[in-house]
């Protein structure tokens, strides 16, 4: 019998046994089939998610790797992972050298300088804004604008007086309200404005100190800023695109905020309320049944003055007329009409939404920060000094496919010069100046625990001293420097994105980059996009672990079941095996029979499972898995995930199942091989 004949015989017996023991075959085959489907589909999903997230993060912010100071106190996290202002990654000691070193490596396309800091935009109230404009108009002698602002301020004072009168009725001691009402009535009196024309500073001071605090609190916008070379950023991150406005001209201080932030945080509260309700209704929710939407309506009614105070006096009548077209029978002033108009329900919502955007939106400041506005960013330097910088809001941007992802919407872009002004690293000269001031005063350090003994341990008679004979304070104006930080690569850079050339044959790894930088002792560390992304990067690892733990559990269970089933099969076939052994079949041949039988089952189940898995992945690819939660938009790199499957993934799935099947069957097979021929001749019990 040739070797080929023996193999053919083994195969024939394997196939015969598969069909002869249908129940066992179906059970083992079914488990292996299920496992293969799981591996193929799960592997495809995980691979697709990982690839999507890598695309999301590397092509929007991180590049393929990030470089930052080796001695950084904190790990770099491009997306927020802690409280505001808490991350300290130090500064790249010599960015110029880092860039030169990296771009000289084949396969590195560019190195984009960056820095991250948290800033605040303090927005005053509508009243504050009007008073700022009034001060400017008065200083500029623009009487027409002063007249218009007078009307607007009187209008606001009238509204605030109505509110205070209501509060006064419930107050046990209305003296405070009475004083405030008197101030508001003074603003509504034409005599006040005549006095203001004669003595602007007194009138303006009265408005700013007595009337402005009566308005609602101003809103603070918190911005996480990525300071970068904006031209280089746009050139290297292909998902970046401007949505509103324009790109920041080279060399100009400029800010770009994300479109999502602009729509959800900066838009007029009433308009945003309309948008929220519309979005919810489109998702199938109704005003009649959804208490959250009903609260949104009530909130809009309460916030109507955010609209009312912005409507110019010469347009108020036109707005009132347009609103009355959809409010037959309504009456009263614009405030009353607006209150009725904002009480929307499912029946009238679409019409009122349309009227709002047609009649009201064009006549108000729809966004608290308009494109083109100069806004003031505030921050604290690392040493604790407050810093502020004026910057023009040039527009909004988004990362294509990530429009709805909240996490990528929290980072806004600002030019490097503005970033460096706010970051405010201190030069040696500035530090020397502080030392000089301190030395000129000669204050001793006193520890908290020893303060009382140190400060009050002396003679009580020395408590009061006469003034020292000191030179009178001079009246010379203070001098100061307004350092403008450089926009070039020479200023402070906190971190940098390394962008690899996708067309290059070089496949550079983080360790390649690190080795090159270490060779020049540049004091920086390189991390891959996953580590640089912080929480988002960890999400991929978590997903991987979850999938592989799931697969491992399924296979451990499968191995136990397959092993048990095979063991029972061996027990059932002990006489058959004994007979084979009695007619001279070697133990190796018996092992072969059982392993071939298992391999056939594993192969058939694996191929069938891979086929079904492939079909499922193809279906999911065609339909797409929708990103039902905002975090999934980021994970999927878009509104839906279209998983793909490689041939390698299929083959790996089949091979893995085959290995699992053979390993599970090995022990029962050995047991069968040990069966003695005498067993075949023993009578069945």
């Amino acid at each position, binding site marked *: 019998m040739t070797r080929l004949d023996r193999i053919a015989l083994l195969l024939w017996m394997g196939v015969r046994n598969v069909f002869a023991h249908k129940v066992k075959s179906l059970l083992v085959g079914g488990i292996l089939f299920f496992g293969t489907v799981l591996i193929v589909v799960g592997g495809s999903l995980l691979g697709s998610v990982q690839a999507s997230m890598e695309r999301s993060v590397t092509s929007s912010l991180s590049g393929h790797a990030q470089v930052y100071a080796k001695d950084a106190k904190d790990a770099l996290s491009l997306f927020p992972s802690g409280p505001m202002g808490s991350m300290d990654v130090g500064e790249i000691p010599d960015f110029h050298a880092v860039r030169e070193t990296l771009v000289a490596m084949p396969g590195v396309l560019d190195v984009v300088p960056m820095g991250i800091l948290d800033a605040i935009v303090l927005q005053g109230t509508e009243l504050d804004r009007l008073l700022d404009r009034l001060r400017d108009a008065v200083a500029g002698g623009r009487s027409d604008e002063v007249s218009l602002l007078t009307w607007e301020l009187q209008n606001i004072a009238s509204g605030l007086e109505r509110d205070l009168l209501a509060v006064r009725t419930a107050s046990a001691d209305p003296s405070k309200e009475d004083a405030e009402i008197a101030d508001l009535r003074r603003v509504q009196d034409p005599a006040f404005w005549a006095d203001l024309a004669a003595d602007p500073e007194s009138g303006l*001071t009265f408005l*700013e100190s007595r009337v402005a605090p009566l308005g609602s609190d101003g809103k603070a916008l918190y911005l996480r800023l990525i300071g970068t070379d904006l031209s280089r950023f746009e050139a290297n991150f292909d998902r970046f695109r401007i949505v509103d406005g324009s790109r920041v001209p080279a060399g100009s201080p400029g800010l770009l905020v994300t479109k999502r932030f602009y729509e959800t945080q900066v838009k007029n509260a009433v308009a945003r309320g309309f948008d929220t309700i519309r979005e919810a209704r489109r998702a199938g929710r109704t005003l009649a049944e959804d208490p959250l939407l009903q609260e949104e309506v009530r909130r809009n009614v309460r916030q109507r003055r955010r609209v009312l105070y912005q409507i110019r006096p010469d347009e108020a009548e036109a707005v009132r007329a347009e609103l009355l077209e959809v409010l037959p029978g309504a009456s009263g002033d614009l405030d009353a009409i607006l209150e009725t108009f904002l009480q929307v329900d499912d029946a009238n919502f679409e019409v009122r939404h349309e009227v709002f955007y047609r009649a009201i939106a064009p006549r108000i400041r729809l966004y608290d920060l308009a494109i083109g506005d100069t806004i003031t960013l505030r921050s604290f330097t690392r040493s*604790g000094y407050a810093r502020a910088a004026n910057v023009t809001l040039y527009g909004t941007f988004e990362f294509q496919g990530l429009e709805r992802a909240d996490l990528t919407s929290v980072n806004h872009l600002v030019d490097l010069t503005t970033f460096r002004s706010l970051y405010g690293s201190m030069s040696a000269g500035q530090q020397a100046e*502080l030392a000089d001031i301190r030395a000129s*005063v000669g204050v001793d350090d006193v520890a*908290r625990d020893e303060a009382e003994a140190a400060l009050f341990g002396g003679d009580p008679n020395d*408590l*009061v001293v006469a003034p*020292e004979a000191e030179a009178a304070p001079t009246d010379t104006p203070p001098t100061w420097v307004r350092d403008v930080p450089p926009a070039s690569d020479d200023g402070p850079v906190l971190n940098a994105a390394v962008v690899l050339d996708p067309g290059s044959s070089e496949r550079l790894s983080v360790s390649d980059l690190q080795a090159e930088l270490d060779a020049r002792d540049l004091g920086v560390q390189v991390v891959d996009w996953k580590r640089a992304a912080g929480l988002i990067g960890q999400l991929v690892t978590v997903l991987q672990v979850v999938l592989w733990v799931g697969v491992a559990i399924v296979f451990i269970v499968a191995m136990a079941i397959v092993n048990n089933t095979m063991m029972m099969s061996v027990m059932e076939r002990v006489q058959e095996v004994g007979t084979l052994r009695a007619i001279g079949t070697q133990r190796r041949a018996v092992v072969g029979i059982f392993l071939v039988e298992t391999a056939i089952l594993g192969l058939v189940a694996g191929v069938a499972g891979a086929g079904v898995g492939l079909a499922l992945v193809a279906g999911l690819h065609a339909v797409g898995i929708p990103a039902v939660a905002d975090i999934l938009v980021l994970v999927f790199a878009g509104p839906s995930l279209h998983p793909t499957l490689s041939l390698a993934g299929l083959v790996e799935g089949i091979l893995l199942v085959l290995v699992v099947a053979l390993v599970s069957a090995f022990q029962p097979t050995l047991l069968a091989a040990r069966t003695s021929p005498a067993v075949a001749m023993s009578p069945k019990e």
Partner: protein
Amino acid sequence: MSRLLALAALLLAAVSFPAAAQPSADALVARLRTVDERQRNSGDFQARVYLEQNEKGKADLVYEAEVYRRDDSDKLVILFTRPQAEAGKGYLRIDANLFVYDPTVGRWERRTERERIGGTSSNRADFDESRLADEYAPAFVGNEMLGRFPVERLRLTARPGVDVAYPVVELWLDQATGNLLKRQDFALSGRLLRTTYYPQWIKVFSPSKQSDVYYPKEIRIFDEVEKGTNTTIVFQEVKLDPLQDSLFTKAWLEAKSR
């Protein structure tokens, strides 16, 4: 010897302020008014101020500033003069409003009583006229020693409707002079927020008041929340000469910063 002295001081304190002699509510308010009155100058006030904050793990904040006050109309100006990068920034108090100006952006902003002046643990009240009697209702806690100083300890609670930085305050007043030596500020929850020491006072004759006026020469503020953070304020070159009316306006501060 020092122990004997301390014992003698304690005995003296016990004799001078027996526990039974707890002051009446009116007497306590009068005590606070005295504290306020001793610092109140009916005219104007001007001083050069050194301000330093040390914070664990961070670089020190150091400023020099000019402080101008007109107590009869509740006005205050703080104009930072050094370091150069901070010069021109300033605060202006008008009535109950505190405005901050930053010449680098040319903008004013209204801030609250809790504004940390220059990012330090100090606030407006540390530079301003003392208004303890108007802002707080006092209660007597006891007589004790602070170092070598016999002191009277009072607990103050903010009067309703008054906007103060801290709702509850404890004071340690020097029994001999009535000067404030120590102050602790608490949150409503009772949590201690900061401890302030006034180890030395300057006595200046005020021509407008026709009597002596007292100013702290040095103020030491210890942040009790962020341990290791402390602020020192030193008043120098105190002058009580009349100031121009235009000084307490936004326009003056803007012009100074230009």
